[in-house]
């Protein structure tokens, strides 16, 4: 009975939702009907405010603290929309060398129900364990980065008692940073950073939608000091909808970033090691 209830209740209202719009939550036991041609949904607009903290705790270890505020348009507030996710990403990073570092940590994402008509819960948490391998390669005055990020993700719907589903995310990002007004990265440098990230996913729930997202971004950044950088950019993304691989979501996202990397270590500990190994 309980099981039935669990399954039947969301089914009912999702069916309603599907009729009203193309957005909605998928259900694994629902019969998927792939469309004969891929369908691209109308892009939605989002605004992200991201802070990236990178706090040195020893010569090679740092605390990676990121908090993102992600807004999404809704019917009532078209452009900036309303808060969709608050994103807390924390990890311990290890600087292996100037060219390679790894990070391991967890994420708690708070998902807000952006549908004002939904009778479901307004807020649900999402949990992730993630690890990342980043390679940095200098090329003339430019820097090139390859980032492999693997996330183990537990998500649930807004519906009461909805169960967690587990998925793995496989992310690869290619990014460049090109200084515009200087020959090297230094304070007062403006740089442009094109990036492309492909996010693939796998898991029981993923049947025909392995490509979760493809993000194409261009950012313009300004290095205030080695410890503080601001950047802003525009991102286009598209990806398969989980419950139907034939349907592609699209979005345009304005991203605003603050990068800060304070170093609270005492000067006498810091001085000899600050140069890492060059």
């Amino acid at each position, binding site marked *: 009975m309980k099981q039935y209830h669990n399954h039947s209740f969301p089914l009912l209202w999702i069916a309603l939702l599907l009729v009203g719009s193309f957005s909605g939550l998928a259900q694994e036991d629902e019969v998927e009907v792939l469309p004969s041609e891929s369908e691209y949904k109308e892009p939605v607009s989002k605004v992200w405010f991201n802070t990236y903290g990178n706090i040195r705790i020893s010569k090679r270890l*740092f605390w990676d603290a990121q908090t993102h505020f992600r807004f999404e348009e809704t019917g009532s507030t078209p452009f900036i929309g309303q808060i969709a996710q608050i994103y807390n990403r924390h990890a311990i990073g290890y600087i292996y060398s*100037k060219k390679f*570092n790894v990070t391991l940590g967890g994420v708690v994402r708070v998902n807000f129900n952006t549908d004002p008509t939904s009778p479901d819960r307004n807020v649900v948490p999402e949990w992730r364990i993630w690890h990342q391998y980043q390679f*940095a390669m200098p090329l003339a005055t430019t820097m090139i980065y390859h980032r492999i990020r693997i996330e183990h993700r537990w998500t649930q719907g807004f519906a009461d008692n909805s169960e967690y589903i587990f998925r793995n995310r496989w992310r690869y990002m290619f990014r460049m940073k090109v200084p515009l007004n200087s020959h090297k990265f*230094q304070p007062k440098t403006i740089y442009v950073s094109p990036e492309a990230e492909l996010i693939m996913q796998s898991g029981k729930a993923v049947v025909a939608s392995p490509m979760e997202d493809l993000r194409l971004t261009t950012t313009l950044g300004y290095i205030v000091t*080695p410890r503080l950088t601001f950047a802003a950019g525009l991102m286009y993304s598209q990806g398969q909808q989980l419950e139907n691989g034939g349907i592609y979501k699209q979005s345009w996202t304005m991203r605003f970033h603050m990068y800060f990397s304070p170093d609270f270590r005492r000067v006498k500990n810091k001085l000899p090691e600050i140069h*890492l190994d060059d």
Partner: protein
Amino acid sequence: MNRLKKACAVCTPLLALILGLPTMVQAQDRLLYQGPFEIDRYKGEAKYYYLKVGQDSLLDGSFQLQRSNLEALLEKEDAAFSITGAFNRDIPEGPWRFQFGEFQSESVSQVVDYQYRVSVSGTQQVAEGRMSDGRPDGPWKYAVRRIKDSEIDTTLFESTIEFEGGIPQRSFRIGNDKSTLVGRLLRNGLAHDEWSLFVNDEMGTVESWVFENGILRTIQIEQEGISTTTPVFDTAYAMMQTIPLDQRYLQLLSLYLTKGNTLAPIQGTMSQLLTENARYYNKIDTIFSKLGKASFSPGFKVQVPLFPLDSLEKIQLEAIKRNFGKSKTVSSDFLNDTQLNILRRSDKEAQFLYLVIQALSRDFLNPMEKVVSYGKSNLLEYVPRNVLTEKLWPLGKPGTDIKVNQGSEPTDSPVIFKLPNAAQFDFNGGNLASIQELSRYAAQSLDSIQRILDLKLSRERGQQELAGLEEQLITQSNILKERIDSAGIQLPGAHTKALLNIKKVGESGLSDYSGLKEVTAKLERARMLVKCLTDLNGLAEAIIVLQGQEKKIQETYQDRIWNPFTATLMDEEVKKRITTAYRNILTPYFLERVQTDLTCENARDIASLMGSTYERMLALRQEETSKLERKLRKERDPETVLRLFNLPSATKE
């Protein structure tokens, strides 16, 4: 039998010990050395015995040191020597023989039996005799011979003296290839009776000194058949003293024998022979005293009259020494002064004074120099003072009027130099007091001459110095202009303005100077200006290098910081408050001061402050400065900033 055996067993080691002891001690202590050895100029192979007493080693037993080098001989020449003898605990004892030779080889060799023979030529010195308790004892013979083809050719010198415990006895004989001196001695070594000098190829005595108990009474000289006798110490003297017959005595004799012709023999053969002999004895003595404890001298003694210096005379002698020392310096300085030598050709007064100095030097200082020298060698107490003055000034002492002949013609009447207080001087009397007066007069005369000449020369030198200084001024001013003109183009405005003001200050200094007329004032100003221009040059340089220094400071205050977001190392300027204070407060302040407040006097201070500020900036990079940075936050006053930087404040006044 058994008991006897037992007793023997006990006795034998004991007996051995008792009997063996002295030989053991001897065997233990007396050591043999065989190897290279050097004494004085003599370096060769030695073989000798010695005792080890504590840290010291005492020569004891036979001693031998020799050297001969066949290779050197065959090649060119060899200085061979051989010293043999014996010591008793460092004291020479027994027969000794010294042999020194300088030989050249003849190029012909000859084989006789089983030996190669090479004949040599050269000279050989041989000294032979006995030593007793470190003194010569018995006959000693010293001979110098010329060797030709390994045979004695001529005897160049030979002395034979009989000693007894170091004191020469009876008679001696000293001769060379031309003449021979034969003399007699008392048992205590005092010269006695007649000492005669024979010339080898002439008949009869040539010169003889007649001693009486060591007192030289007369000297007789026979020249071309005419005999002259000169009395020496012929009267009775109150006090006599025994002194060795050495150079000093011969010098003393020359003081006594004032009258013309007898002076010659003293410097002649007789004293020559004695001196030569003394030299050879001294050579042996040097070797002996370097090896051990000995005294080796001919030991001839004589008696001379003594006239001790009383306390007053001692004071007078000191005064003479003092005055002479001063006068000698002044006179020789002037006589060797190249400038005076040039000046006197054109300046009549300088010429006159130069001649006066010459006269003073000749008539006053040269005889006085002898007094000082006699004083030093303690001869004065053996000469009556009147004899001394007569000897030193045989034509009489000079007066207070110093006459010089200025003209080239001898008929020109002499010009007289005289001190205004000449009347206060009294040169009369054959005593040290009169010599002291002479020395005082010479010193005062030279003093007054010096005053006149110094003035003349300094004026002369001033003119020359001025010429040199002016040349220097022009050079320095050109350097300054050139430096500023070439640097000014590439510098920012404030820098250029400061440089232009430096140029202006330099130029106005020069134009002020050119308005001066009087030499002394000009000299003083020129000297000051040279310094000023040097300082201005330094300051200009400090401003020219300022930009480079700023750049260096900027580089110094960079820290490389890891930016994790770009994965790059970034240069970041650190301690910005300090660098900002330097850039925005101090540098403009320096430039402002140079533009508005520059003088010759403060140029150096500003330049050095700029220099030390730069040094301080470089040093502050490494120092803990958080407190300083806090204080600098709102500070705008350059003086305060300098103080915070621990630099001397610029405005000292």
